[in-house]
């Protein structure tokens, strides 16, 4: 159960090797979290991630999960919920893709869209149903500012996140008043493995900062969280920049 500050006792991270996911898990373990489920493709990285959280004193279990294999989601994720309440689900999986290559390789581009969007729709619905049955819990969805307005430089990734963002907002409204809380997190450029080697955008942030914002958002039962917070205003302005001008912006 969550306490008065929204700190969960059990956590399920979908995308168990995600740096933001692990930073959030570390932060929540320091508060109240005792049970962590890491769902991801079995790999040495997933085992290492589980070990690093075990070292902090949590009871960590890994479960095989592939975002692209949507047919298996119901069975795989449903099993986790039968073993006990999950107070918070963090939907943290996603791929950035390689925009330049993906534009000429539709199969690779579709894989980005399927991982980030259809995979998340499937996993999100399965988890939302289970949370609803237990009558409480938070579903935290990692979206991105890239979904707020598509840019020339990453519109394949951006469009997948735009779909996910819209899905999560609608799901949050559908679950309003059911005791289940859906929170959409929109980080800006996050310095991590996924963005290594890319030119840093303004207002860049870190996985730890995103984790701190998630902890705060849980306490406030926020519906939308921007990281850093200033992006809310920046993106409100960017949304209204005319297309001819937006095309020429060096972003």
């Amino acid at each position: 159960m969550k306490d008065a500050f929204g700190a969960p006792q059990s956590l399920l991270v979908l995308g168990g090797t995600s740096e933001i996911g692990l930073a959030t898990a570390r932060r929540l373990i320091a508060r109240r979290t005792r049970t962590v489920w890491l769902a991801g493709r079995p790999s040495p990285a997933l085992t290492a991630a589980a070990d690093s959280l075990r070292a902090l004193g949590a009871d960590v279990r890994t479960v095989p999960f592939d975002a692209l294999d949507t047919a298996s989601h119901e069975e795989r994720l449903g099993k986790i919920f039968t073993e006990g309440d999950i107070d918070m689900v963090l939907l943290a999986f996603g791929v950035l893709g390689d925009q330049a290559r993906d534009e000429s390789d539709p199969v690779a581009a579709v894989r980005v869209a399927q991982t980030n969007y259809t995979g998340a729709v499937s996993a999100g619905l399965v988890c939302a149903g289970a949370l609803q049955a237990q009558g409480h819990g938070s579903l935290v969805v990692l979206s991105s500012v890239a979904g707020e307005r598509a840019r020339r430089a990453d519109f394949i990734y951006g469009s997948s996140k735009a779909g996910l963002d819209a899905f999560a907002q609608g799901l949050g409204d559908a679950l309003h008043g059911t005791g289940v809380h859906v929170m959409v997190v929109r980080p800006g450029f996050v310095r991590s493995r996924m963005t290594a080697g890319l030119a840093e955008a303004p207002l860049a942030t870190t996985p730890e900062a995103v984790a701190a914002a998630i902890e705060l958002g849980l306490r406030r039962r926020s519906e939308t969280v921007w990281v850093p917070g200033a992006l809310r205003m920046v993106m409100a302005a960017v949304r209204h920049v005319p297309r001819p001008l937006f095309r020429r912006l060096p972003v």
Partner: protein
Amino acid sequence: MAVETHVLDDDCEALSGWGRTAPALARVRRPRGHAEAVEAVLGCGPRGAVARGLGRAYGDAAQNAGGTVLDMTGLDRILALDTTAGLVVCEAGVSLHRLMEALLPLGWFVPVTPGTRYVTVGGAIAADIHGRNHHGSGSFGRHVTALELLTADGGIRTVLPGTPLFDATTGGLGLTGVILSAALRLLPVETSLMRVETERVPDLDTLMARLTADDHAHRYSAARIDLLARGAATGRSVLTRGDHAPYDALPRHHRARRAPLAFRPVRLPAPPPHVPGGLLGRASVGLFNELWYRTAPRAATGRLQSLPAFFHPLDGVPHWNRIHGREGFLQYRFVVPYGQEETLRRIVRRIADRGCPSFPAVLKRFGAADPGWLSFPLPGWTLALDLPTGLPGLGRFLDALDEEVAGAGGRVHLAEDSRVRPETLAAMYPRLDEFRALRATLDPRSVLTSDLARRLRL
């Protein structure tokens, strides 16, 4: 396995405690009689059931996510009254307010009342509440002469004081069963007025000395501390003691001489439903506390006050819990045993140094410990303060205070709690294992459960 989707219907309601934190959805059943209560417990489904009264517990004691909550306010009849012996038998959903309305005109008062009269008798037993008369009268459970308990198997048992089931049920947070009715011993009174003594006390040490010296001379005694005062004024407080005024003590032409047992509580308008959070910061609360201290009489004796004004000043404002905004608030109520005064001083100093925006907190001396296994009171000092959950770092700060309290042999109040770590609990409640063992035999499938029980693994 297929994930069951929960079909929302009209019975489902998101419930939270008085602190308005951590809401959870439950199917609410409102039994009007014993048969309906039995049916609700037997048919409650895999996530169990718990009874709820008027929702005054601050935390998650009376919520049950995904399960059933029995709204007991439908069981609201006073069944029998013996005005010569001062005994009343009533159903569990009767509120203390209703009891006062019915019994005061007959010259009887409830044996123990907390800071609100909008609690049910069932809730008062399940939380084993205490009042400002704990040093003389003990907790609510001590005045219960029998109760009817609906257990998880659907049976209704009469439970008498002195039995293990009774001691597990008083303070048992509704986890041993659903209390259906209870017999209470009442307190005779001649008037519905209180004779009150008030004095200002400049610091914590003086306050503790004053409380120790002559607490026993009054039936009711508690102090309110300004936890925002620092330096030499740390712990400055207003000490209030009171006794039921006898009829002869009323002045000759006092209007209460004609209607000495009248009970007319005042109700003010409620705050609007959506108050923005963070209004009550250090500056506004500090100003309030300063004015409150300055306007309190330096020393006044023999003032007459009505019962609601003396016991339940906040009940005059319905829904006052909205003032902390949608993020909600919590109550931190702890006790440390006598001999651990240094711990109490250190905690008061830590709270003052941190500048927590708390309205005057209640400090009280408890009497002997009560027999309930999970009852809160033990012989010592108890302090209770309300804090908005939005204060940065408050969670970690209170965890640190928990360590001090547990290290000193003290405890926090479970019915008020919404945040304690399950690991610290065993040190605070030494009879917890007995409680768990009794629950395991009485209710092996954990039919009676609550969010609090899940959070603290009770």
